[in-house]
């Protein structure tokens, strides 16, 4: 489904991703962990098409398409979804209106019939219930005045509505209390399926107790320093990131 090969990216001339290789097959859940500043969020944003990041080399193929050559909206229509670390407030745009526009753009791209207002309302009400989201939030402007927890829940809700093939969750657990974390994780788990893949970017192991990954990758200084299964995240929980950073540093200097 997703093939990342030798991906380098920089922002303002500062190199952040320094050769990422990653393969995600349908139905898999990959977790990207790593210390602050290791490039986790950059990777998430590059996949979604944020133009503040310049890809300097490498390629990303998504279901055979050259993802890096597609503008963000085409990526979304092709089935890529980013749950933002910091969801953006958009005054004046009602959540329901925004989501209907987005859903219909994606449905159109998939060759499906666009939903009218009534059909859409029924469709989202069910989805909102599934993530315990108060459907009164639908009438409010996108994320405006939402609490941190409501914003994150809104991201998972949008994911449930848009039904992407690949969902990238960028630190969806940050700023959540344990109850909100469970609701968010539960929402994600309901969407897991044989055809849908996830990249779960997180700093802490905690989220992975609820969203159990198939693979765990540790990002250090723009490279995947270590990959493993769920047990790797537990090891990180115990030992911290220091030992991997150290090992990565040694192999780096050894390489030079």
């Amino acid at each position: 489904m997703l093939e990342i090969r030798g991906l380098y990216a920089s922002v303002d001339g500062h190199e952040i991703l320094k050769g990422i290789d990653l393969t995600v097959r349908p139905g898999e859940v990959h977790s990207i962990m790593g210390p602050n500043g290791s490039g986790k969020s950059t990777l998430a944003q590059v996949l979604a098409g944020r133009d503040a990041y310049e890809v300097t080399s490498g390629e990303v193929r998504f279901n055979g398409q050259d993802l890096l050559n597609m503008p963000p909206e085409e990526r979304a229509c092709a089935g890529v979804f980013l749950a933002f670390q910091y969801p953006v407030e958009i005054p004046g745009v009602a959540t329901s209106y925004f989501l209907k526009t987005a859903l219909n753009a994606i449905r159109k791209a998939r060759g499906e019939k666009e939903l009218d207002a009534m059909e859409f309302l029924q469709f989202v009400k069910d989805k909102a219930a599934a993530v315990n989201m108060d459907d009164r939030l639908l009438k409010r402007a996108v994320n405006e005045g939402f609490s941190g927890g409501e914003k994150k829940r809104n991201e998972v809700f949008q994911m449930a509505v848009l039904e992407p093939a690949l969902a990238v969750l960028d630190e969806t657990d940050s700023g959540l209390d344990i109850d909100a974390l469970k609701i968010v994780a539960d929402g994600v788990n309901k969407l897991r399926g044989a055809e849908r893949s996830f990249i779960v970017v997180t700093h802490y192991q905690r989220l992975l107790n609820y969203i159990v990954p198939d693979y765990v990758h540790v990002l250090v200084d723009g490279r995947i320093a270590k990959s493993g299964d769920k047990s790797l995240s537990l090891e990180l929980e115990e030992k911290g990131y220091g030992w991997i950073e150290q090992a990565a540093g040694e192999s780096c200097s050894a390489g030079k």
Partner: protein
Amino acid sequence: METTLRDIVENYGLQLRRRTEGDDAARPAEFDAYRRAAFDRFAKLGFPTRKDEDWRHTDPRPVTRTAWQPLAAPEVDVPASRLAPYRLDAGNELLLVFVNGQLQPALCDAAALPQGVRVRGLSAALVETPARVLPRLSTAAPHDEHAFVALNAALFADGAYVHVEKNTQVERPIYLLYLTIPDRRGGSVQPRNLVVIDDGASAQVIEHHVGLDNEAYFCNAVTELVVGNNARLEHAKVVRETDAAAHIGTVAIEQQRNSHILAHVLTFGGKLVRNDVRTRLAGEGGNCDLNGLYMLRGSQHADNHLRVEHAVSHCGSREMYRGILDDASRGVFTGRIVVQPGAQKTDAKQTNRNMLLSGSAQADSKPQLEIYADDVKCTHGATIGQIDENALFYLCSRGIDEEAARSLMVYAFAREALEELSSEPLRAQLTELVLSRLPNGDSLRDD
């Protein structure tokens, strides 16, 4: 032909003579005296220039350097079809139509006026009930400091006189539609409206200025709103002059105790537009809400100049003006808040937000706070910026294409201003106007 300033003042002096001479016995002598006094004031003040602080960002020369002649009423009747796009809710609104500043009785629709409401042409009202009307004129908009206001007082041909008696609630909107149909030579129109809302009464007045043919003309409009104790008034002024026209307008408000005013100024059309809005909170417990939108493109220039005077204690004012500036247009906002000595517990809030859609568009925003009391709350804030890139990326990342996302952001911004209008048909009409100016705007319509 070189037109000197003297020629211009002389031209207006001739027009004054035409208005005040002749043996029209019906015209009260006091009214002639009023006009002459206003003209003297105008001649003394002289037109402003960019050297005046209040006109620093707006060059008035396109209107001050021409010896404008008043536009005549068109020779043929204006067909109802030209009116139709601007009507709000036929059958419900109390409609007065003015063409080139002259009342057109045949086009009006203000029959079956509710009890306690007078809606008339101002010049007719001045003849019929001078003792009632004349003392009220120029109370909210005295002509001692503003040359355009003084010029209007000296020369206005007509306008609306609205009087709502004590404790009368007018449900139907009073709709004043000003159509300008200039001839090839161009010309001027100078409408004047006087709205008096007595104690405990309420009303909604919409003043819509529309230019129909793309010739140069100059509209110099003055509206006075006199609002009594416990009275409520919503006033909406919509400026849709043509791309060749200039509109210089003043809305002047005088508010008494516990009164509430919601005043909108919504500017879409006009090459040069200047809106002065001034309100004087003269009775305790008064509140005013000033809502504005200017959506400009091409080389349009609009200057909104607000002045809120808190003359007594315990009053509130809120100003929210939004600008959407495309192409090489320019928006100017000045918000002056004056808190007089003794006006304690004043609560004043001013916000001006500008969205620049092009690299050549320009916005200037300037708060001016003059506070002579010590127990007050005054806040002001201004923003000038492009469309928020983070928000744009967020929308696009959900599948909305960039052009539609941009239009959506602009539409949402404009809609926040339009939602303040309580007239649903006016909101719908202006929403359509906003959408028609946005790429892919059709797709944004709510269904």
